[in-house]
């Protein structure tokens, strides 16, 4: 608004420059509007086709390349339209903040911006078509009518011609309206035509400006930084929510683990040590009077000491298994498999090198807990454990760990079950847990963890 006011003021001061500027702007806008159906038509064809390709790629295994390739045109055409609008505004001398392109290189289906690009590709075509037709016809009629005088050779032929009649209502129906405007002389008609043509040409800047404004508004709504900003905010909000859920899961997993640790210490080594103290107290109490009781108490004290040490060893293995810390996941899981009471078939050949410690720990405890469950609840005679690298939908590396058995099934992820704790632990590490355990078996749990 201030823009046009300012130019109006300047224009009044220097009429010549105002005419030149308006003319240039009208030409640029016309060029933009008349070429719009070409790009819009191409995007209307290619973007939905790309979407179909991406959908098919999504359904096929290993189709992540097709997904990325199929989604790319939406981004290309959005970039093109952004560039066109930017150029048009720059050459036409419209000032204002530029839009810039959107952050992010890849076409990611999770990015809501991509879907706005797609929406723009679909919506823009009819609008571009209408504005292009209006602009084209306006130019055509305006130029044709205003140059009629020149084309007629400047000398109007004399004589009379039938009156010009504007009619509506159709020629075959009986009711119609016909207005005769007269103009039976060629000179009169030429004069009127030229006048109408000039009027149209004078109004042309307003028409192109309005049509261009419609296109720019549409672009602003769907392609601009402003909407990109909104999307960025919603993207960040989503990230924050995910992080928050992850924190909650981590806290819950940690609280559960700590509570269990406290219980284990209380029920195990602490009891042993109290009993040890009690036996030593007994030995002291009877030291002078009953040597046989002292001997018995001391023997018991040695047993309790040994047991306490064993329990502490098992506990420290439960907190941070030394073999996992020293030699990595594969060695630790091999040790787990060897200790299992149910025979375990281990498939971890695909795993090499060390992974992120958090990933290793989470995977280890998932397998350890799952094997404990197999031994306790499944009545299985066989159990398979696997570890493998994989790729997530977005191409990031993952670690997949699975445990399957031939037992009775019926494991559930519901609250209060041991698997729930596993789920929390995994989500805390950014992973997911899938459980398939129909009644009657078999049970398979699959953990998917991000890694490097």
């Amino acid at each position: 608004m201030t823009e046009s006011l300012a130019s109006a003021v300047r224009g009044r001061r220097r009429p010549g420059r105002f005419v030149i500027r308006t003319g240039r702007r009208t030409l640029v806008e016309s060029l933009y509007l008349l070429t719009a159906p070409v790009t819009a038509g191409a995007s209307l064809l290619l973007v939905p086709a790309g979407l179909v390709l991406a959908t098919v790629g999504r359904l096929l295994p290993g189709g992540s390349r097709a997904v990325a390739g199929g989604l790319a045109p939406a981004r290309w055409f959005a970039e093109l339209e952004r560039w066109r609008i930017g150029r048009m505004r720059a050459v036409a001398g419209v000032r204002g903040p530029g839009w810039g392109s959107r952050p992010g290189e890849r076409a990611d289906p999770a990015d809501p911006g991509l879907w706005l690009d797609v929406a723009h590709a679909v919506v823009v075509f009819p609008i571009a078509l209408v504005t292009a037709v209006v602009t084209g016809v306006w130019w055509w009629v305006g130029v044709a009518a205003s140059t009629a005088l020149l084309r007629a050779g400047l000398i109007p032929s004399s004589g009379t011609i039938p009156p010009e009649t504007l009619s509506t209502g159709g020629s075959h129906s009986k009711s119609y309206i016909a207005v005769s405007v007269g103009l039976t002389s060629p000179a009169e008609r030429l004069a009127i035509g030229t006048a109408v043509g000039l009027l149209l040409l004078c109004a042309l800047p307003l028409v192109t400006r309005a049509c261009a404004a419609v296109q720019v508004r549409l672009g602003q709504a769907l392609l601009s930084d402003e909407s990109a900003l909104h999307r960025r905010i919603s993207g960040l909000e989503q990230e924050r929510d995910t992080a928050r859920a992850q924190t909650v899961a981590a806290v819950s997993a940690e609280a559960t683990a700590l509570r269990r640790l406290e219980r284990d210490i209380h029920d195990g080594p602490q009891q042993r040590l109290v009993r040890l103290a009690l036996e030593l107290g007994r030995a002291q109490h009877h030291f002078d009077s009953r040597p046989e009781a002292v001997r018995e108490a001391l023997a018991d004290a040695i047993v309790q000491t040994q047991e306490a040490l064993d329990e502490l060893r098992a506990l420290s293995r439960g907190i941070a298994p030394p073999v996992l810390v020293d030699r990595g996941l594969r060695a630790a899981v091999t040790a787990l498999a060897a200790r299992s009471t149910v025979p375990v078939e281990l498939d971890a050949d695909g795993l090499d090198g060390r992974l992120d410690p958090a990933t290793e720990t989470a995977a280890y405890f998932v397998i350890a807990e799952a094997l404990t469950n197999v031994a306790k609840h499944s009545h299985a005679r066989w159990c398979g454990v696997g570890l493998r690298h994989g790729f997530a939908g977005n191409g990031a590396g993952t670690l997949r760990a699975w445990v399957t058995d031939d037992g009775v099934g019926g494991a559930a992820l519901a609250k209060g079950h041991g698997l729930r704790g596993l789920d929390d632990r995994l989500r805390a590490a950014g992973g997911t847990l899938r459980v398939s355990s129909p009644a009657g078996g078999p049970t398979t749990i699959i953990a998917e963890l991000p890694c490097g």
Partner: protein
Amino acid sequence: MRVTPDEARTGPAADGPMRIVVADDAVLLREGLVRLLAEDGHQVVAAVGDGPALVEAVLAHRPDVSVVDVRMPPTYTDEGLRAAISARSQLPGAPMLVLSQYVEESYARDLLADGSGGVGYLLKDRVARVEEFLDALRRVARGEAVLDPQVIAQVLAGQRRDSALSALTARERELLALMAEGHSNTAIAQRLVLSASAVEKHIGNVFAKLGLLPDDAQHRRVMAVLAYLRA
């Protein structure tokens, strides 16, 4: 020396064998305790593993004293403590010595809340000092209050300035702490290197400052300890 006038308790002879109920879910410790008590000539009339069984055994056997572990099934929290309080509400003044892996002042306050004495609250480790443990058991059976020094330490650490105890001198407070631990006047005199009469005078001052009337010396001791805990 009997404290509270209730019919349930017969009170053991000064040094004679006691009839005892042991409640601990850890078999390991239960067996150790039973053997320890038996070797000292006491009769363990029941050894149980959870709260309801404790209440039942106490009501059935009316023991001279019960040894109770705080943490027992099914909740593994303060099951034993609540069972002990419940048993005492049905059999007022039934002596309870509560053992725990860790002591909490608030638990001690719950135990003493009925003001009738005959309660003890000790860290489990104290069983290693066999003589002291057996002595504490006997004191509780007689109706005294025996608190673990750690509880006393917690009370001292968390004491509010405006409490009833602020009127006491440092020496009087020290003396009250020893009383709460279950020491006799003689033992207190020995510890603080005071004459027995000086100890009695101090204790009299403590009772007076806490507003405890001279109706029953032993009961007043329990009330003083309770006041101490409430501080």
